[in-house]
């Protein structure tokens, strides 16, 4: 399994051409057949690869991503390339503009293989909530790849992209990365511009890369942390340049690092997951890290808090899909504009999206907002404060990614709460705006990967990546 850094070195040393690299990805895509893509841009990718190769031939790669095949979750706006949000309502939408992500990778000279599948508007944990079909887990096709960025995780795992950018509102990259045995990293809220990322829950959404190694995260992150004046919530900090630090990283970096273990987190996991988490903790200890007990007493309320906030924001964010200016319109609805709205939206959105819009609309509605939305925002502050307190005694926090690992397709529960509980360990990170990284570690009873999550302090993304890398390079 070749990572970005290795490919970059080979491109630089002319051991491989960008065209060969992308051809290899395309053939892996066909072989794997996991329905990871919504739109494969085969012809365009080959042309772009040739262009990159010509540049590399002349001057060498201009950065780590030059000539590297990648994919974007179909929530990222790509000019003149269909962008569906995994939903029927944008089935034929061809954006008239480029989002930040697309622009940055064009600038870097990356080769876009295509747009990958996801739960509609990022709403789901299994990638089953989409008319484009469930994405299969490349490691075992009976299993889900996870969601909502299932296409991103599957494409990296199957080798059709060297990296993929997903979105993470409540765990949507960390969870599928974990289900597919690779690395998913959600930067601090505000660290990466959201311009051109189709919104779900604006105060929680963050673009988030999926790749094979932590080192690769370093290669990607320097290209996507340049301040974007078009997103006010994008923090004006210098971009993160840590590839050299990560290349030279030694496991000894962990010596004396304090790693917080939140009370009760691990015990709630499935037995096989728990076993592996404990093994990982042991390794950290052996490498000289100090495990510190911390408490996040309000984290257990995160699912309630998250669903009220995310759906409230979504109810407004998804109001623009009304069939008037773009997207699906019921052409038969002619009894007034109201009918056009209602029919177009009802036909365009999937079931789970409608459920969340309805919940969010209710949570904001007059007479209930204080009890639901506002109450959730207060609990959100308590969760935020819990982390601030915990971080007084540790550098990063160790946590499960999910109580289980990948489950079988169609097995996801009809009970919405059980379904939402998949995100129990990833959600608090979004609520508090922290950086979090899911790392693969071990295998579960079903022979599919398991892993753990490290959570960093706000805007201390570099330190989080260094600690994760130090663990990655252990002997």
């Amino acid at each position, binding site marked *: 399994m070749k990572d970005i850094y290795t490919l970059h070195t080979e491109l630089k040393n002319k051991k491989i051409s960008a065209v060969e690299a992308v051809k290899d990805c395309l053939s892996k895509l066909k072989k794997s057949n996991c329905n990871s893509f919504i739109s494969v841009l085969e012809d365009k990718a080959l042309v772009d690869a040739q262009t990159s190769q010509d540049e590399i031939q002349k001057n060498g790669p201009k950065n780590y991503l030059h000539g590297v095949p990648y994919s974007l979750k179909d929530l990222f706006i790509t000019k003149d390339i269909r962008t569906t949000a995994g939903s029927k309502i944008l089935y034929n939408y061809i954006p008239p503009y480029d989002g930040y992500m697309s622009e940055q990778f064009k600038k870097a000279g990356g080769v876009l293989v295509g747009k990958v599948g996801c739960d509609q508007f990022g709403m789901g944990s299994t990638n089953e909530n989409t008319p484009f079909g469930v994405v299969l887990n490349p490691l075992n096709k009976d299993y889900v790849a996870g969601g909502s960025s299932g296409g991103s995780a599957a494409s990296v795992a199957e080798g059709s992209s060297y990296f993929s950018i997903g979105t993470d509102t409540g765990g949507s990259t960390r969870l599928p990365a974990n289900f597919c045995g690779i690395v998913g990293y959600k930067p601090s809220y505000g660290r990466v511009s959201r311009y051109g990322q189709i919104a779900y829950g604006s105060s929680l959404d963050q673009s988030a890369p999926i790749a094979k190694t932590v080192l690769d995260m370093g290669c990607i992150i320097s290209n996507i942390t340049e301040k974007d004046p078009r997103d*006010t919530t994008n*923090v004006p900090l210098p971009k993160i340049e840590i590839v050299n630090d990560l290349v030279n990283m030694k496991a000894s970096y962990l010596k004396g690092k304090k790693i917080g273990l939140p009370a009760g987190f691990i015990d709630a996991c499935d037995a096989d997951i728990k076993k592996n988490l404990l093994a990982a903790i042991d390794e950290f200890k052996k490498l000289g890290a100090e495990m510190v007990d911390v408490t996040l007493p309000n984290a257990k309320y995160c699912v309630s808090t998250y669903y009220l906030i995310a759906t409230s924001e979504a109810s407004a964010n998804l109001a623009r899909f009304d069939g008037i200016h773009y997207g699906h319109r019921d052409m038969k609805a002619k009894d007034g504009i*109201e009918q056009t709205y209602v029919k177009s939206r009802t036909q365009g959105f999937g079931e789970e999206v409608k459920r969340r819009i309805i919940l969010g609309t209710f949570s904001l509605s007059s007479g209930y907002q204080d009890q639901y939305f506002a109450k959730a925002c*207060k609990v959100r502050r*308590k969760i935020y404060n819990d982390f601030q307190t915990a971080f007084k005694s540790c550098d990063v926090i160790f946590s499960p990614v999910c109580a289980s690992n990948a489950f079988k397709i169609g097995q996801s529960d009809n009970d919405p709460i059980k379904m939402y509980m998949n995100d129990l360990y990833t959600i608090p990170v979004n609520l508090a705006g922290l950086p979090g990284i899911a790392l693969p570690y071990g295998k579960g009873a079903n022979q599919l990967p398991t892993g753990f999550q490290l959570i960093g302090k*706000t805007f201390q993304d570099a330190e989080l990546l260094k600690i994760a890398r130090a663990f990655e390079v252990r002997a």
Partner: protein
Amino acid sequence: MSEFIVSKETVKHVAKLARLEIAESEVASFQQHMQKILNYVKELDAVDTNGIEPLYSPVYENLDLYYKTSPLRHDEIQASLEVDALLKNAPQASQGQFKVEAVIEEE
């Protein structure tokens, strides 16, 4: 929050606000779903939030950082989209405008 019983009317009212149509046959399923979630989120009642300000976004905790430089935009004109690019996704367009084949009720 007190026990909230989700009625069919609630579901219909909220759906109407959200401009969604729920078929009569689906109302019960939406109602159940919503009831389950509202029963679950009742757990928040147990959290003492007296004197706690809502946190609407993590940015509120880092305003100093955000305001180190002005987060506002200069009042300088930049190119708009070409009309064709703007209207290319419109379900219907006419005379350089979006078209709706429906009379718009006056707001």
